């Protein structure tokens, strides 16, 4: 069983939902990333999604675009991302780590090379935003051979036939994009999200994480009630962007604690 699956299982036994924060590796500076990652775990992260900075992040809104730009300006990139993950793993060997990024940096360093590097670092899952199942069979099979989960996005416009196609390749969990748009773009309609999550559950027993539009504790609470995990990205990245160096860790922790409490509330109500 992968660490991701084990984490979901343990949470389920405790009737809890997962909180999965997203940050961009190297934002605001590579020197800060590992410290932020540890702070995320201390304040309630069950897993971490670590973004690989890319010059052309076409599925991301302005907040995460700027995070990529800051990271790249400070010599961030795919190699640095893997190095930072390795540094995090020196003292944390248990929190599942998921890399999220675009196909080009992965192909640029070579798919086989990428997989062997992240295996060595004990990365647990990969989300490649612009690899739909039709274009990623080879990559996904190689990840599977190495026991690394392939996490796929499902969107509000994904029809039943495609959901089946996606779950055939997906492992670990499914990532439901809760709105039509880019990351962090708007508030979500919880009724629509609920309907779609129930729809996906008809096809798959994989845990379902919901993200892209979770901007406050109230939404996190509502999302936790109907899913298995809440992904918070832009809101945390915005906190990093708006904080000065001295307050950064405290601000991120406070935000995380607020989200964590709201998610646990949700589980208890249920």
């Amino acid at each position, binding site marked *: 069983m992968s660490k991701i699956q084990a984490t979901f299982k343990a949470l389920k036994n405790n009737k809890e939902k997962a909180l999965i924060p997203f940050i961009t590796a190297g934002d605001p500076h590579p020197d800060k990333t590992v410290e932020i990652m540890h702070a995320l775990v201390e304040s309630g992260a069950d897993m971490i999604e670590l973004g690989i900075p*890319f*010059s*052309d*992040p*076409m*599925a991301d*809104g*302005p907040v995460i*675009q*700027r995070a990529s*730009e800051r990271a*790249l300006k400070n010599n961030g*990139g*795919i*190699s640095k991302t893997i190095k930072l993950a390795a540094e995090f793993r020196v003292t944390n060997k248990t929190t599942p780590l998921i890399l999220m990024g*675009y*196909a*080009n*940096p*992965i*192909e*640029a*360093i070579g798919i086989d090379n990428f997989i062997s590097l992240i295996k060595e670092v004990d990365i647990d899952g990969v989300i490649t*935003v*612009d*690899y*739909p199942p*039709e*274009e990623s069979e080879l990559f996904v099979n190689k990840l599977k051979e190495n026991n690394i989960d392939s996490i*796929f*996005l*499902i*969107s509000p*416009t*994904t*029809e039943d036939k*495609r959901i089946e196609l*996606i779950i055939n390749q997906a492992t670990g969990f499914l990532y439901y*994009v809760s709105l*039509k*748009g*880019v990351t962090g*773009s708007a508030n979500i309609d919880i009724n629509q999200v609920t309907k779609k999550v129930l729809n996906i559950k008809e096809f798959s027993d994989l845990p379902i994480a919901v993200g892209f539009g979770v901007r406050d504790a109230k939404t996190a609470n509502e999302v936790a009630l109907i899913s298995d995990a809440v992904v918070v990205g832009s809101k945390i990245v915005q906190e990093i962007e708006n904080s000065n160096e001295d307050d950064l860790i405290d601000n991120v922790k406070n935000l995380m604690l607020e989200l964590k409490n709201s998610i646990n509330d949700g589980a208890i109500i249920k």
Partner: protein
Amino acid sequence: MQPYDLPDDFGHFGQFGGTFVAETLIEALDELRDMYAKYKDDPEFLAEFHHDLKHFVGRPSPIYFAERLTKKIGGAKIYLKREDLNHTGAHKVNNTVGQALLAKRMGKPRVIAETGAGQHGVATATIAARLGLECVVYMGAEDIKRQSPNVYRMKLLGAKVVPVESGSKTLKDALNEALRDWVTNVSNTFYIIGTVAGPHPYPMMVRDFNSVVGKECKIQMPELENKQPDVIVACVGGGSNAMGIFYPYIDDKNVQLVGVEAAGDGIETGKHAAPLTSNSPIGVLHGNRTYLMQNDEGQIIDTHSVSAGLDYPGVGPEHSWLKDSGRASYVAIKDKEALESFHNLCLIEGIIPALETSHALAYAEKIAAKMSPDEIILVNLSGRGDKDINTVANISGISL
């Protein structure tokens, strides 16, 4: 021999092309692919398309014998396919008419577009006005500064021009931003991509709409010379004018196809926009796999060209395939050489060509000299240069 039939059903030209987008866009692309398949051979749709090309665009565009230029070079005869005479001044309008008519059939009241130099934006705004569609054009903040007359043209035509402040603030970033808009407004919006790039079915669809250029040449050239040209030369940024004239000739193996990229300050300086000629690695950007200017870590690098329309780090995936298969060859022309040819054509033939097109002209002049007088070079004169007079004046140290 098997006739040329790429791409496959998934938009692949060999290892190139494809559909590399986030799941959020898949449904929209599926819908577009299905609707295009439904209408591409539909007699009523085609009749409407060709009616607009004739009466609104002014097609067919003539082929013109550049007699004085030919004499000056002293070699092969140089003919020009006059896409500069189209309404809005370039080949771009062929594609925007086609896609806008498709948008109308699909019941989408809003169209969006990306633009670099502004030509595709103007062509989109034009057809949107003609069909009564809402139009939003994304344009890099840097390009807006460089191309203010075209920005005003789009506004006159009723389009909203949105400055893009992310990344390098140029064409590739405008494309990213248009894709983000499309993801968000998928239900009422049609994205009119301006070149043979993007995810499937765009490279195929944009090629098909522009192939009217090559189809006309196949009829016109024998009328003038009793034979097809020996060489066809076209400039390549994303590569839509080149694909438009190349495509109908792919199975005519006696006709050489040459794409001309922008060498900027010179390939060796790194300041260029020539992914094919500079042997850039294969990568994935804007929904397709193709040759792509990038660093070792897969970050897209800044490009340079005097012509905004060629200033793009990738190239349409079909060009990557044509290069690898050997069916077409690709060369690059420097800023300085293109400018010389720009002035040449103005003075010798009374035609102000676009700076993009001037790259193709410069290469044609180079090879014409080495060819015999009974051979024919056909250059796709893809656009007129009125939009470039400020740029050329600046370089010449003249303030207008």
